[in-house]
């Protein structure tokens, strides 16, 4: 098993594998999105307190959770890259960053749209929204640092260190923002009753899975371009059909 993992840890072999894997994630993603959207709009019932507006949750919650999760995964790949000096790990971290940032953006946008009917304002400084905003800054910082360093090896490693420092900070930041928010008596999103209706849970699951699969497909596609770019001077690239034309 260990041998198999390391076989795919080189950009050369991973390029092909990633290419084959993409449709396996993209197509189920589209199907799950369709199912999730159908369930979200037609199957899940109207909420007692929030009416139809709560349906935004089905895109807001998955993107929020995943944005945080992807940051940790990105930091994980970054750490692997630093410790084992594997080029591919660093490339994966760079591939995840834009997707993570866009998920954070969607989370912020949908959060704002949910906030308007709920509290009358487009923005509310509650713990979760503020943490999402800070998470966006962390993502952008990673991308900016990587883009500012010309030498690829230094760029990879510097951004990796930043990602790791950021991920250690995330719990501290979240805790402090929560603290700050309760002091200033912010409001939190609540649902009618303590537990969510079962159909709502299922829809949430479907949408979360859909977003996850979508993200994997996009990240795999992006990392292939990154591999092409970084390895462009090698022989195996020249042998590729899409390069030979």
């Amino acid at each position, binding site marked *: 098993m260990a041998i198999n993992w390391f076989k795919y840890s080189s950009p050369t072999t991973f390029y092909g594998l990633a290419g084959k894997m993409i449709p396996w994630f993209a197509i189920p993603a589209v199907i799950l999105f369709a199912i999730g*959207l159908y369930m979200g709009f037609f199957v899940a019932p109207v909420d007692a307190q929030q009416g139809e507006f709560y349906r935004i949750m089905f895109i807001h919650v998955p993107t929020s959770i995943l944005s945080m999760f992807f940051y940790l995964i990105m930091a994980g790949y970054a750490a692997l890259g630093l410790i084992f000096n594997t080029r591919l790990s660093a490339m994966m971290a760079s591939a995840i960053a834009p997707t993570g940032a866009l998920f954070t953006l*969607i989370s912020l946008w*949908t959060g704002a749209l949910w906030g308007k009917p709920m509290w009358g304002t487009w923005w509310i400084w509650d713990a979760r929204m503020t943490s999402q905003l800070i998470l966006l800054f962390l993502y952008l910082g990673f991308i900016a640092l990587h883009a500012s360093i010309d030498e690829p090896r230094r760029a990879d490693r510097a951004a990796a260190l930043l990602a790791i420092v950021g991920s250690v900070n995330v719990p501290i930041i979240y805790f402090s923002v929560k603290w700050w928010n309760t002091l200033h008596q912010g409001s939190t999103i609540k649902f009618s009753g303590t537990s969510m209706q079962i159909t709502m849970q299922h829809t949430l699951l479907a949408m979360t899975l859909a977003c996850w699969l979508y993200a994997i497909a996009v990240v795999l596609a992006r990392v292939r371009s990154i591999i092409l770019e970084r390895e*462009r001077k090698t022989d195996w690239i020249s042998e590729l059909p899409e390069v030979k034309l």
Partner: protein
Amino acid sequence: MSLDIWMRENPLTYVWFGSYAVALLIFAIEIVMVVRKRKITLQQVHLMRDAGDEE
């Protein structure tokens, strides 16, 4: 102000266009960006190879 009224009268449209359509738009943009990046990278590799072959 009229946005508020419109919003309350057409909640589903608001939810759909405001959030889901935007999210799907962002996803579409991301996909387009990834595809473009691949095209450009392949172009660059071609140029490099052609320049190398001429020597």
